[in-house]
């Protein structure tokens, strides 16, 4: 099992969020990148867009599949990782670090409480895989 940072929070749709004050940085998990394989295309929102917790905010596409990106929390997009679009291999090389996608100013910090801890996420992955 890959290393899932303990100070991040995780969603069932396999995004992570790292929180600093009222700002959150969002990416996809190591599990998500391993399932997708080589990423070839992403579609991200623009700075100023409003994200809704649980709603799609973009898409990520690999050679073999396309999948939606879901917002872990609600809030306004304050930064987009533009350089990522030309360095998509970062998703596969450093999903929990260099491959961050967007930053948001969180509208409701209590939404964070509803997300999974790294331990919960690892258990979730194990139970999901066990169920297949």
């Amino acid at each position, binding site marked *: 099992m890959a290393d899932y940072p303990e100070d991040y929070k995780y969603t069932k749709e396999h995004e992570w969020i790292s929180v600093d004050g009222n700002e959150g940085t969002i990416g996809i998990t190591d599990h998500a990148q391993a399932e997708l*394989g*080589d990423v070839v*295309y992403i579609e991200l929102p623009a700075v100023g867009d409003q994200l809704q917790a649980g709603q799609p905010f973009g898409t990520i596409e690999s*050679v073999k599949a396309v999948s939606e990106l879901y917002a872990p929390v609600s809030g306004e997009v304050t930064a987009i990782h533009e350089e990522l679009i030309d360095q998509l291999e970062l998703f596969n090389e450093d999903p929990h670090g260099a491959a961050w996608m967007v930053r948001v100013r969180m509208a409701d910090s209590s939404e964070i409480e509803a997300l999974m801890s790294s331990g919960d996420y690892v258990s979730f992955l194990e139970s999901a895989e066990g169920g297949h």
Partner: protein
Amino acid sequence: MSDDPKRTPLNQWHRDHGAKMVDFGGWDMPIQFEGILAEHKAVRQRAGLFDVSHMGEVRIRGDDALAFIQHLTTNDAGGLELGQAQYTLMTNHAGGVIDDLLVYRLAETDYLLVINAATTPKDVAWIEEQAEDFGGLLEVRDESDEWAQLALQGPDAETILSRIVALDLASIGYYRAAFTDIDGVQALVSRTGYTGEDGFEVYLPPSQAADFADTILDAGANEGVVPVGLGARDTLRLEAGMLLYGNDMDESRSPVEANLRWLTKPGKGEFIGKDAIVAQIEAGTAERLVGFELIDRGVPRHGYELYGADEQAIGEVTSGSFSPTLQKGIGLGYVPAEHTEVGGLLKVDIRGRKLEVRVVKTPFYRRPQPS
């Protein structure tokens, strides 16, 4: 399908080499090992090893074998020399494509048909039924379980394979094959493939397959030969403009619509589907298969809708992918004849966004010719 997926003799070998497995037409097959892009690149630049043991094999022997194959298939097998292979089609009476296949002439009156995995049961039933109606001195035998098949593809394939087989591979031309001895058993080595690169397909007994796969990886260690899954097999064949049965053609499409008219030889005499095909050649068809590339960033996929420049829905993507070599989206689809002109602009609906595509000649990729 409730049946357990079928397994090739390399099933455990794939797992031991880190494959991610998927169900493919009822077979438990590797979709990827290291990753589709890395495997794709290895085949384009060095060499890659594929397990294609799921393909079906049908042996046709007897004094009337050739006459029957001429009746059964659209291409002209009459001129095949010993050891020569031919790409051909089986069509139904309406001219619809039952399968695409290879025909090998192994000996004077001895032929091997290599058919797609998912269509093997259907094909075998069709061939046996036609053979019964045809009569004559003929034996049809489904040998699908008796052959494993490995493909070694890429610019270094010949160098690597030369180290482990006793044949002079340089003397085997494109679409030629020869028997050789591998660990005491007969194997058929053929210069054919489904990647657009030079390379070989090796037919051998299932019991030898895993050892031979290991031998190839060892022999090509310096060249960096890697195992390749079905994911890269699909991106490689699509770049090379090769059709996938079940996606790009099926029984509702004729060779003329599929741009495979070059595989039909009405001049050879009678064959199943000939009248329908000749009528289509003469009158043309309402739709034809085209290749296209995305102008914007985006990846077309099987089933996405195609539109004309005037936003009228005109067809569907039958195969689509990101092209690792060209670094853009490419695809195939059937559209009305008036939209097939090379250079013309169409649109593809990618999850609600209509992106522009340009009709292009296929293959999308052609390998550099040795100087």
